[in-house]
């Protein structure tokens, strides 16, 4: 049965516990010397892939990341959690800011074809840009079915049953493989990469390639105009009656 191969995409982001500070020139946030880790939703994706491998439903798990050389740390964490090998699509640090969901989706699509995988797993969104687009775009480029916001994934023969968390409740889909799945919070609880596994993962391979090797164009039509702190919250105003409330709202031009 275990002939399936999975590709898991992981992103290196600023650690969720860090207090973000905007750079004085407003071009972005301070990343120098700041603690980074694997995007929490990507961890869930890696965990799911490794669990499928442990259940002998998936034969090989490949971890991939796009970005500067530090991404290899993130790939190593995925390897320590149980992925078999890694691919680092190297992007020089200066250009890394312009690599967004569309560019990554192009890379993942090409890799999925090159590696002949049956399943592409990603986190639903990254905690730095909150785009929630990469998985969907990848499926679109590959013309594969997609199950996003997955809270449960079950393999049924050549089909994948995906339970999705949507606004109204839970939706269950059956996807024909190959497919793209993006993971949501309640899918699983990722394991710790134990120190002995980190040591063992040192022997696993990470292939380093460039986007151009895959024939992918990383150019973007988007530019960041400015990054600013949200406005400071000011005190609210208390009113006595509903009429006062409506009058006040009209006053500030909200209605």
């Amino acid at each position, binding site marked *: 049965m275990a002939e399936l191969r999975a590709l898991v995409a992981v992103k290196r982001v600023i650690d969720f516990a860090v207090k973000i500070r905007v750079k004085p020139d407003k071009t972005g946030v301070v990343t120098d010397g700041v603690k980074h880790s694997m995007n929490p939703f990507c961890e869930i994706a890696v965990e799911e892939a490794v669990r499928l491998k442990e259940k002998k439903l998936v034969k090989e798990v490949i971890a991939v990341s796009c970005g500067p050389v530090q991404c290899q740390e993130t790939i190593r964490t995925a390897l320590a959690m149980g992925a078999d090998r890694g691919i680092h699509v190297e992007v020089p640090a200066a250009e890394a800011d312009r690599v967004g969901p569309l560019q990554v989706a192009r890379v993942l699509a090409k890799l999925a074809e090159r590696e002949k995988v049956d399943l592409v797993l990603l986190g639903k969104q990254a905690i730095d840009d909150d785009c929630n687009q990469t998985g969907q775009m990848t499926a679109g480029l590959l013309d594969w079915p997609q199950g996003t916001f997955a809270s449960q994934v079950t393999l049924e023969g050549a089909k994948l049953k995906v339970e999705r968390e949507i606004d109204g409740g839970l939706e269950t889909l059956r996807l024909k493989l190959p497919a793209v799945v993006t993971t949501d919070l309640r899918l699983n609880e990722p394991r710790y990469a134990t*120190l002995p596994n*980190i040591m063992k993962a040192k022997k696993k391979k990470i292939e380093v390639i460039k986007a151009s090797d895959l024939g992918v164009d990383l150019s973007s039509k988007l530019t960041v105009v400015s990054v600013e702190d949200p406005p400071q919250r000011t005190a609210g105003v208390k009113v006595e009656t509903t009429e006062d409330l409506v009058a006040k709202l009209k006053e500030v031009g909200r209605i």
Partner: protein
Amino acid sequence: MSRCGLFLRRAAAAGRACRALVAFTASRRPLRTSPQSRAFAKELCLGKIEKNGVFPFPEVSQDELNEINQLVKPVEKFFIEEVDPQKIDREGKIPDDTLEKLKSLGLFGMQIPEEYGGLGLSNTMYARLGETISLDGSITVTLTGHQAIGLKGIILVGTEEQKAKYLPKLASGEHIAAFCLTEPGSGSDAASIQTRATLSEDKKHYILNGCKVWITNGGLASIFTVFARTEVADSDGSVKDKITAFIVERDFGGITNGKPEDKLGLRGSNTCEVHFENTKVPIQNVLGEVGGGFKLAMNILNSGRFSMGSIVAGMIKKLIELTAEYACTRKQFNRKLSEFGLIQEKFALMAQKAYVMESMAYLTAGMLDQPGVPDCSIEAAMVKVFSSEGAWQCVSEALQILGGLGYMTDYPYERMLRDARILLIFEGTNEILRLFIALTGLRHAGRILTGKMNELKWGNVGVAMGIIGQKLRDALCQTVNMGLTGKLGLVHPSLEDSATKLEQNVYYFGRTVESLLHRFGKSIVDEQLVLKRVANILINMYGMTAVLSRASRSIRTGLRDHDQEILLANMFCVEAYFQNLFSLSQLEKNAPENLDKQTKKIAQQILEKRAYICAHPLDRMS
């Protein structure tokens, strides 16, 4: 000045006449057969800075650094998300599933070689992980009690069979280890232990009898490193009582535990009495040589000591974060606490202590990671003394920043204070370690100086010239240059002033040591108040060297925020310099700053009556 002139003329004449002699003695110079020792602290006692071991500051390769950072991440994550230090302290135990997770993370075998299932970490990597586990004191001491001392003997001197038999299960945490040396009557005086191991009639077992006290992990352990007296036949046929180390399994029988001790701090860690009653230990379980137990015990304790520096530094860095949050938000007198000088001073203190501790700890770890078996026992002891006292001071100041809140059990400060108090006591009390530091250094200096005196008697002109030159320099008050500053200096120019201060201290200290040995001779062993000052000066100087070395490297390699490093390094060096000057002046003959005689007299009078003896202020002559 005329005396100088006479001196000069005499010296010149001697030089001219003895150049031939110098050539003669040079050809008779003995061959150097021993390897160059990294005797940094010992050389300080001779007024020299042994630069090889301490400059440049030890570095790890980028690969190693990546590996260390990788290893730290999951441990940090685990401690932040799943360890509740308050609960561990309140309930007096580490939850079973926390212990299991620590085992599966691999934290029970950090320094056990990989071939036996451990992580085989270097001292530097081990020190780095120490910073992360310091988030909970009880867990830290459970882990270090197990591996830094409990099983370390097997790694250091165990036979292949012993290693293969015991290390794998110790690495996975299936078995926990404990170090059994202390007895009710033998604490600091470890050599006086009374536990006895007698060889059985069939010479296949030792029968172990005795009582060990305050054993960390005593109730959890299944493998004990036990130190006991054995009869050893000397080479000349006489029978002596010497200490031997044994690997004892709980399954050998006859081992009982007392109840867990109710402690001030580290309440989650298990500490209890361990009793051995006719426990049969197979002779294959002798650890190291029969009779070599005391030396092994000292080696074991020395090898783990340096990590206290990084463990405490990790804790203080966390403290700074916690208290800064508070100081920057809390307002009194309509201003934030962080704007007040007295509060700012506390942060500067914590940052400085953490900086010095880190520098000393990683310098020592780097020295220990050098090939060969370097003897860094004095340096490790210095790290331990500085860190334990720094910890106590910093936690106290942090608690003070919080004011009344710091005193409440809802906040972690009182627990951290209680946990930190033991640091000055266990692993060698700071009093004993100060004596050890001072005496080892002085003994080395004494040996070299006596050697020099003998050479002088034999007509070694090189030595004579050296001594004359030194006296000349003293008389002319020339500045000292030991190669730290200047164009080819090892220290970066922005630290030049501090480096010069260190060189001056070292030189003055070397002369003081000579004068002390001259004044006291062998009886210096009993002059504890003198030895205390010698140790304090040595610790300060090691600290100064460590920060100068580290800061120089940070500036030269362009690490971020090195301006703060320059500030911290210079600030510490200036403070230490003046502290040293005061101690050195107290060590001079008949120094008015020295109140030792009075101290001893007061103590004598009190201890005679075992009470405070002065009349009450309200008393009258009736």
